[in-house]
């Protein structure tokens, strides 16, 4: 497999301009000292308890997401392009959601197949006709970007349901600033620390009309959830309550928290549980995580849910190929960020092509997430490919396929020293009265040599992401 675009080094070995300050530091710092700081980082992450639990493993098995000391650096000019592209994309996705749950203009125009949207399992009938405050559906979005062989950025997928990982962005930065303060004085690195503040701002802006001083809460499935650390972290950083479903109840269409001083009204819920668990009286009746009556209160406009239920229909992998079309339709602009070319296996031609080229392609389940339910052709055995072929043939409409991109690499500390490893990037976008694009994001790195799967549940690590200000 091709090694892909190297973020730090030019093809002939020279150091790219935006990595030169880091390279000088690397060369002038004794190896033992670097090793010491790497160990310090690990101990510190463990003590602070920044861990995640892995599904399918014994409960209470908390793992550390490996943190790598080499930052991913994005030059200012590149970031300006990315920022404009992310803003444009998230804006269009919100307009799309408002449309498909409202007038459905884009379906009537025939630009997106009607059935693809309306019969999608992520489309929430219950949301038809609901006007959400400010027209914002996806308040918090995470857009996954990758760079292919020529260094061009592509959007790999959109995350509009409950995107996670932002706590790692913040903690990685805190760790880098603590361990390597000298690097921050050599370069102008855009700060990401304002994220919790901006999040609180957009959540308060999303409050139902007429509430002067809205009470915000973060709704978590509980401490057994793999992202619990993040839920607690964000609630703490914003200074709001972290609640579980059982801490809330609904009376007369208002949502209350059970407190030591009796019931207290809640106006905005940043929910970190999936749609189907929100309210057992409307969605999954067996859910113990949600709040009975919550959806009625929401529909009555007495409480805001962020993100709104039903956003999943816009980030579904079967709808993804149509995002460029949405941008043209709603904004009359050309898309700044490109999609990865995608074969839709519900189409006969695409299906035939894919089945003939399984060994070269990446095939993904349209509703899958977290790197589960996908086939990376070039990295799979013949038997794995044949097994997957049967799964595709059973339900072709359930899959899409994309060319295997040779993701860009970044030098990473591994057993044998510094070596290139594949990375991606998830920037976070907050939508309120304005759209905030946080300068940076979460860079995930596939620690196994040659691996393209960066998910933390599959052995991925993370890096700090530096967006440079001005100059190179």
């Amino acid at each position, binding site marked *: 497999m091709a090694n892909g675009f190297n973020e730090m080094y030019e093809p002939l070995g020279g150091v790219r301009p935006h990595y030169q300050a880091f390279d000088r530091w690397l060369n002038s710092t004794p190896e033992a000292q670097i090793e010491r700081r790497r160990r310090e980082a690990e101990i510190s992450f463990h*003590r602070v308890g920044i861990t995640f639990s892995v599904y399918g493993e014994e409960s209470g098995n908390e793992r550390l997401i490996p943190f790598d000391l080499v930052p991913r650096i994005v030059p200012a000019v590149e970031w300006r392009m990315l920022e404009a592209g992310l803003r444009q994309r998230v804006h269009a996705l919100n307009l799309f959601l408002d449309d498909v749950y409202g007038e459905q203009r884009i379906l009537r125009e025939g630009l997106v197949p009607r059935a693809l949207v309306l019969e999608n399992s992520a489309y929430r009938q219950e949301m038809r006709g609901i006007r959400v405050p400010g027209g914002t559906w996806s308040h918090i979005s995470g857009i996954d970007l990758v760079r292919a062989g020529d260094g061009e950025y592509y959007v790999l997928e959109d995350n509009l349901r409950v995107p996670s990982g932002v706590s790692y962005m913040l903690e990685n930065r805190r760790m880098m600033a603590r361990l390597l303060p000298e690097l921050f004085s050599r370069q102008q690195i855009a700060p990401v620390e304002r994220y919790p503040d901006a999040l609180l701002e957009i959540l308060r802006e999303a409050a139902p009309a007429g509430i002067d001083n809205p009470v915000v809460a973060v709704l978590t499935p*509980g*401490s057994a959830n793999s992202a*619990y650390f993040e839920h607690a972290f964000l609630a703490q950083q914003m200074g709001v309550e*972290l609640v579980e479903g059982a801490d809330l109840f609904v009376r007369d269409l208002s949502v209350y928290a*059970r407190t030591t001083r009796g*019931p207290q009204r809640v106006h905005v819920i940043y929910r970190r549980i999936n749609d189907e668990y929100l309210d057992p009286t409307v969605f999954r009746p067996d859910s113990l995580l949600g709040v009975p009556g919550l959806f009625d209160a929401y529909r009555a406009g007495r409480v805001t849910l962020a993100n709104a239920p039903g956003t999943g229909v816009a980030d579904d992998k079967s709808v993804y190929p149509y995002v460029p079309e949405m941008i043209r339709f709603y904004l009359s602009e050309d898309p700044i960020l490109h999609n990865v070319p995608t074969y839709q296996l519900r189409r006969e031609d695409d299906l035939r092509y894919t089945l003939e080229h399984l060994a070269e392609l990446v095939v993904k389940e349209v509703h899958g997430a977290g790197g589960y339910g996908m086939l990376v052709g070039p990295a799979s055995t013949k038997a794995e490919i044949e097994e997957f072929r049967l799964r595709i043939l059973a339900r072709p409409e359930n899959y899409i396929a994309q060319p295997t991109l040779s993701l860009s690499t970044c030098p990473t500390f591994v057993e044998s020293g510094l070596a290139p490893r594949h990375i991606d990037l998830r920037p976070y976008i907050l939508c309120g009265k304005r759209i905030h694009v946080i300068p940076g994001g979460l860079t995930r790195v596939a620690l196994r040599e040659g691996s393209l799967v960066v998910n933390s549940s599959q052995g991925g690590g993370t890096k700090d992401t530096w967006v440079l200000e001005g100059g190179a």
Partner: protein
Amino acid sequence: MLCRTANDLYWASRHMERAENTARLIDVTRRMALLPERYDRGKAEAAPWRRALDALGIAEPVLARYGIIDADTVLKHLLLAADNPSSVFSCLRAAREAARAQRVAITAEMYEDLNTSWLDMRGTSWARIHGDGISNLLEWIKSRSASFRGVTIGTLGRGEGYHFLQLGAFIERADWAIRLLDIAGSPESHDGHESQDAAEYFRWSALLQSLSAFETYRRLYRESVSAERVAELMLLQETNPRSLLTCTHTLHQVLQTLAGGQAMEAVRRAGALSAQSRYARIDEVLANGLEAWLQDALARLSGLGDEIHRQFMVSTDIAQLAQTQAQNAA
């Protein structure tokens, strides 16, 4: 504050206090087990260890489970047993889990402190304890408890969260003041033998030492160690930070703060308990039977615990619902 948060904080500090007192209980028991056999009938049958279990009211289940009561069994059960919810292992785990669930309500330093304790405890094995010595482990447990208490006092804002942590710690400590007194044996079994006097002195001073209260005793009484004085120190002396009086007095104050002038059953109960230890006289208590007095205090403490739970940790709408249902059923 959420009811669930109040409940978790209360139990986080209760569990840390329980771990510390379990260490002190083991400490005093080990000291007593040093007495030569002729001073302590039944020592060969591990009488001191049995008394330790009796003080906790768990001798029968432990015997049923392990088939034997000896030093190793009791130590394993009280320190390491994952299926004993009150073992030090389980206490540190429960405190850390509660703190993890309530990271938002406490300071980062408090969580990191409990997390460190738990990670170290999890890495401990019976073989390692044997290698390092039990004393080292007991010192470690006490210092972990002290560390959490110190970080809490030093970093947490004096709001509701702080008050619920206080409630948990002091209700647990009050309970142990009574139980630890129990373990040193009842003061009435006197038949005047010199060996018995020596044994009794040994036991009471072992108790004082394991509570770091020997110096306090000497300063306060300036006389030889006697059962009567030790009982007074443990129950009725405000200068002793672990006495029943200190604990119930603190509970009363904290509950008054939480009530903010409102009439509350929990405040009344804590006040009554506190007054009972403040105005009791040790000679009267002994004359009327110490055991009965202790049992009564234990029962009232437990009642206070239930009342705190009902007042703050059960949501009002559930309470109202239960009330309505009860009325409808009637």
